[in-house]
Structure formats: C-alpha cells, structure tokens
C-alpha cells in the first residue's frame, strides 16, 4: 500500500486514494470523448502527465502533503545530508530527537567563523548556499545520531508506465485535478485549442487553491 510520502509513519488506507483511471474516466466527457480510444486531440499519457502536474502544482501551492523522514543518520564530520526525495520545504528538523533551529549561512558565519568545520552536537540547520536537495547542520555532527525531518512534499509521481496509479488526495480536491487537466488540454496547440475553456477552468481551480491554502497553509 503506497504511503503519502517516504518515511511517513502510517500508510494511507486504500479508501483514501484516488485512482488515476477514475480521474481520466471523469475527464472523457469534458474532452468530448466516450472512451480513451476516442480521444483524438490528446493521448491518455498526456492526461496522466497533466494529472501528475496538477498534483505537484497543488503540492507547491498549499501544504496538503506532509511527510516525516526517519531514515537519515548523521556521520561524524559530515555537515550536509540528502533531503527526502519528494521534499519541497523543511518544516522541522531534529538531531537525536532534539529540535534544531533554522538558520542561514550568513547567520552561522556571523556566530562562528569556523562553523563549517567545528564539530559538536548540532544546534541549527540550514539549506541556503549548499544547492538543492541538501540540508546542512551546524556545528558539524560529532556523532552518528538520527536526523528526523518533517517536511512538505509531493506524493509519488503518477506515470504513464503505471508504476504508480493512485493519488493520496482528499476527494474534495479531486475537482481541482480535473480542472487543471482540462485547462492543460485546451491550451495545447492544435484543433483542441480553446483558451476560453482553459481560462474558465483555471479560474475555477483557483477556488480550490484558495481553500487549500486557507486550511493547510502555504508552502515554503
């Protein structure tokens, strides 16, 4: 059973997962098709890619998807560690179950000119000036201890190959996915190009984005 995000403590029950095939079936009517085989101006794979893009857009827009990574263990003398694969922004980090405070590299340099090499029990975490996908600890860990991270992320990619075919989304936000796919479909150049429909769908989708941000907060 797929979990919402890697490391999450409890998997989502099957009843809370939305099947990609159900979403594409709902999309046939607004795309003026009876079956997937009837789609002329779009392909099934395009619909799946737009579903995935919509889920990721929602994940960037509102903090709906949150996960907890328990997999990282620090190493003595190593300052930076890989963030979870589907990480967007860090909400909380702890070293040896003790909370770390967020900091910038500028702040760390102002506090300690040897912050990049001094080893001790970490007190702060940072993500600036080390590229994407990494979290840094200061002081540099002097021991092997668990590094726990609670973060906003995106769920597993829904792909055309069928490796993952479900979205762990609330049913009340499924209309958002449909609207985003309709907007993407009708902005594709070709005979199906209909910017008026796309614009209307995007405007409607904004209602769901607003509600999601209000309930679950922004991301980043």
């Amino acid at each position, binding site marked *: 059973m797929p979990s919402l995000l890697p490391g999450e403590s409890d998997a989502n029950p099957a009843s809370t997962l939305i099947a990609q095939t159900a979403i594409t079936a709902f999309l046939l009517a607004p795309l003026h098709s009876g079956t997937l085989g009837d789609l002329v101006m779009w392909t099934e794979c395009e619909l799946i890619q737009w579903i995935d893009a919509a889920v990721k857009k929602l994940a960037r827009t509102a903090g709906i998807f949150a996960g907890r990574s328990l997999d990282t263990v620090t190493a003595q003398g190593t300052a930076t560690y890989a963030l979870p694969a589907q990480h967007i922004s860090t909400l909380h980090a702890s070293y040896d179950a003790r909370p770390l405070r967020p900091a910038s590299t500028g702040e760390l340099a102002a506090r300690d000119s040897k912050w990049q090499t001094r080893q001790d029990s970490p007190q702060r975490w940072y993500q600036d000036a080390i590229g994407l996908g990494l979290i840094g600890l200061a002081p540099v860990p002097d021991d092997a201890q668990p590094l726990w991270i609670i973060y906003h992320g995106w769920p597993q990619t829904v792909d055309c190959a069928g490796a993952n075919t479900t979205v762990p989304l609330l049913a009340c936000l499924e209309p958002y996915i449909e609207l985003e796919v309709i907007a993407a479909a009708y902005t594709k150049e070709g005979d199906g190009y209909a910017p008026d429909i796309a614009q209307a769908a995007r405007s409607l989708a904004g209602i*769901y984005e607003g509600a999601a941000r209000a309930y679950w907060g922004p991301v980043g």
Partner: protein
Amino acid sequence: MNLAALEKRVWERLEQDPLAPVTPEPVVLHALNQAYLTFVLLTLCLEKTATITLAAGKPIYGIRNLLPDYLRPLRVTSGDPVARLRPCSFRDLDALDTRWQDTNLSANPVDPPSRYFTVGCNLFGVWRQPTADVSADVTYAYLPPPLAAGGDVPLTPEEYHESLVKFALVWVRLPEGAGELAKVTPLLGEFLADAAKLGGYVKARSVAAAYDSLPFEIKAADISRLVKGIVAKGAADAKPAAG
C-alpha cells in the same frame, strides 16, 4: 431533495427531457458530486465525533488511516476527567519539551496528552505521548461519501441543495466554450454566495464552540471578480465561429 430529484433539475435547467436527456446521467451525477464535495470543502458544514486510540510512545499518526473521511480537526479531547487537547505548532512543542518526538523520554505517567498538532491533510501528533494506550475523541469536519443511488440525499442542509444544481450546471457547461458558459456563470456566483452564507453560519457556530478550524472565508468581492473574470476573459479569448 434526493439525487434523482437533483439530476432532474439539472436536466430541466439544460432544457433537456429528463426521460431522454442529451447529457448522460453519469456526467450529471459526477457534476453533482463535484458540487457536493466542493460545498462541503468550502463550508466545513459536516462534522462528527469519533474515538481514536493514542498509542503509548507514539507521537505522530496518519490520521486518515484512523479516520478515512477526515477533513479538518475541530476539537480533540482525552483523559479522565475529560480534558481538551489544545492545538499547537512545532515552535510551541519545541518550547514545551525539546524531546517531544522521543518515544522514550517524552511520555510522562503523570501528565496526560494536552496538545495536538496537524500538518498537511494527514499528519497528526500529540504531546505528551501517553505511557499506556488511551482513547481520544476527535470532533472533525468530514467528507461525505459521494451520491450514488437515486434515493441518496446530500447531507448538506436541504435549503442549500439547489446550490448543488447551480454548480453542477457550471461543471457541465464548462467544456462547451465561452458562449454556453456565459449563460451559467452567474450561477457560479450564486453557488459561492450560498457557500459563503452557510460558511458564515458555520464560522459563527464554530467560534462559539471554540473549534480549532474555521471555514474558508469567501469574500463577495472575490466572487464578483471570479465570475466577471471568467465571462470577460472567456468572451475575449473565444475563437471566432467558423465561416
């Protein structure tokens, strides 16, 4: 009003014979369900209380695993005598107890759970962790099952059932282009105004009950801007008719 009556109203508003409609029944059913769930999302008008077990030495849960229809938390109570768990942030937890995630040290035989937090639509945590399994009553806004059979009645207040018809009409007309959509776009404004009205009532009731979540606030100006935007932009971008 049950599902069959709602579907009939949609077809009648579309000038279609309900006995031989042009718009297929599954399409109308889906549109009504989208309206139903959207209305619940915007108003948080459905609430229930369920009992969950807070396990010893476990700070964080996947709440949808325990309550599959969970939408937003309203109130959490636990203990004997019953006490309310207050919502808190990570900053609060760090200030209260730096070992709040530690499954060995955060538990305290004297202090029962007194705080809870939620992150995203699924992560739910408590502090302190109980030393033995205890039950907690979670009052929460929930998502109803979709309408399926003709006799199913939406659980939203009956005086707002007509609102579902309005949104369903917008949903059905959406892929038909600016011309058709312009005819029903005012109904979207009415749907959102209805949701705002019920949301205002739910909000007042939730404030009085000191609930932890309030409905999304829909402002009249936002509704007006949205409706005008769809119509104006749609009309401006519409492709000229052939010939």
